[in-house]
């Protein structure tokens, strides 16, 4: 009985142990790592990827993917910049427009996938990744917009006491998504579609509608991440978010989700996000070059997937 529970614990909390082990090693190697300032740095530095990865979790749960999140982030913040800075509209409208643009961009991804019947979201979102990026560049004439008002900068810049608002926002959104995925029927449909799309369709699940919701939410989360980026950099650059989709995918996979769909949790994703953020931060503290960081993160991804493969092999026996 005891053995069984240890195994389940490892299975369930593997990524968490990884995060704790990693933090332990870093705490030994760098005296600054565990300082309050630095822990808050990690919270702040991880928040954009946390939001993008949470959005990314949904398509991956349905055995899909969303490669366009980095570009959606860019186009959302750029439009928000045009509205609230260039055209001088109230910041609240800029904020709403930012999130709306993200959701609409995601909706387009969902419609391309379900209505045009493009074979795999890898292709449709690869296409929109380029389209949205190009739009962001054209809309701004390729120059960054800066000079945002306090409200637009609020989420990315301010903190309550020591705790960054951005991280509080992350926790709130994660709780909402956890409830959505585990308690709502749409949430359960998402897992079912990832498990077996045809079976889900035959059992009467409105697959297309669920997929549209999934990609819309992913776009919305990218825009929410964009709001944090505005605050962190006080600017909206059309080249913002380049390659962010890769970090988001990495976080979801490291957090224990499966590319084959149907497997993955909100909290696992958060751990995955933190593992990447801790790695980057720790390696910076140690003064290692970014090339090495890239190698380490790559190795961790491979390792996480390998663990998943072993788990699967064991499960099928």
């Amino acid at each position: 009985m005891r053995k069984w529970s240890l195994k389940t614990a490892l299975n369930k909390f593997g990524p968490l142990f990884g995060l704790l082990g990693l933090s332990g090693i870093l705490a030994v190697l760098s005296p600054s790592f565990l300082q309050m300032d630095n822990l808050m740095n990690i919270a702040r530095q991880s928040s954009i990827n946390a939001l993008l990865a949470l959005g990314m979790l949904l398509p991956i749960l349905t055995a899909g993917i969303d490669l366009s999140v980095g570009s959606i982030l860019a186009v959302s913040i750029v439009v928000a910049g045009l509205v609230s800075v260039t055209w001088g509209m109230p910041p609240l409208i800029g904020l709403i427009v930012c999130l709306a643009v993200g959701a609409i961009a995601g909706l387009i991804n969902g419609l391309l996938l379900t209505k045009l019947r493009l074979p795999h979201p890898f292709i449709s979102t690869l296409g929109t990744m380029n389209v949205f990026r190009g739009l962001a560049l054209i809309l701004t004439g390729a120059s960054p917009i800066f000079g945002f008002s306090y409200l637009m900068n609020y989420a990315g810049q301010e903190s309550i006491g020591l705790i960054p608002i951005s991280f509080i926002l992350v926790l709130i959104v994660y709780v909402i998504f956890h409830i959505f995925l585990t308690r709502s029927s749409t949430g359960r449909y998402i897992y079912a579609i990832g498990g077996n799309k045809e079976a889900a369709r035959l059992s009467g699940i409105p697959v297309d509608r669920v997929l549209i919701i999934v990609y819309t939410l992913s776009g919305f989360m990218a825009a929410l991440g964009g709001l944090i980026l505005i605050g962190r950099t006080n600017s909206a650059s059309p080249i913002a978010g380049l390659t962010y989709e890769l970090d988001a995918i990495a976080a979801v996979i490291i957090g224990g989700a499966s590319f084959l769909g149907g497997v993955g949790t909100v909290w696992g994703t958060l751990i995955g996000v933190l593992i990447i953020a801790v790695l980057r931060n720790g390696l910076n503290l140690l003064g290692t070059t970014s090339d090495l960081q890239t190698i380490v993160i790559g190795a961790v991804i491979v390792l996480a997937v390998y663990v998943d493969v072993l788990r699967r092999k064991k499960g099928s026996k």
Partner: protein
Amino acid sequence: MKMIRKKILVLTLCSVLFLFAACNSGEKDNTSETKKSDESYKFGVVLMTLNSEYWKIQMAGAKDAAEELGVEVSFLGPPEETQFEQQVKMVEDHIATGADALIVAASQPDAMVSVLKNAHTKKIPVVIADADVNFDDKVTFIGTENYDAAKLGGEYLDELLNAGDKVAIIRGQSGSKLHDERTKGFQDVLKDKNIEFIVQDAQSDRVKAVNIMENILTSNPDIKAVFATSDEMALGAYTALENKKATDIHLIGFDGTPDGLQAVQEGKMLANVAQNPYQIGYQSVQSAYKAKKGEEVEKRIDSGVLVITKDNVEEEIKKVNGYLNNMP
């Protein structure tokens, strides 16, 4: 089943430990060469990237100055120049490790302002290198006057062009301020000639520049000259000129990297507007040191440029090789 689980755990721990051991030893190599003094300052440097020759020369300059002054420098930079948000994180991380001063070359200057303000409230002096940041409390800005430098390149071409000629400009990332300035400086100096400019963005990438140059030659075979806003792109453009047997088109590069200088030497490039990254790095560390000591530092230090042609290229190559050989 238990065996597998154990194996995974051991494997994970081993590889993580191994990777960190590797990182840590690498870090020691970096810092062991700098001499310690009684009050050894530690300066945190964040560059646009660490993996091109231009930035390596800048690091060489910073290192030399650090050795002379007996301070420690730690370099960070993202893998790609476009990853400006990672630069913000790197500045935060330098602050967390207790850097005594910061030296920052920001690829998106506006994005850097708020984190630099944080550094200032923590009383950490900030030296801006290479690309200016609109941040009032900086110690100084050390860098090339890009607009003026590009003008020099344009002037050099002035007598070789006739009114109404077509000239291609291959530039770095749209929206990047320094490439904007270089493009504009070059265009402005040739204003009177009524030149038709074909401007394309190759994102400072050599391979992209090859493709773009080939496309330009296909649609505009009658161009007379090419100006690239960085050497990487100039070298890509030359490959395209060679492929299309159009090497009689004048090519002007920008940066003065070793490859770029060699291209001038071999007659592939007519001229190269060489920046002085070594001076930028060197003076950055010196200015940070002066600021720590409470000495006066000029608010703007021009690191200077030199137009390299066949006449002075040998000399310049010797100098640059000297810098790079000093790098570990």
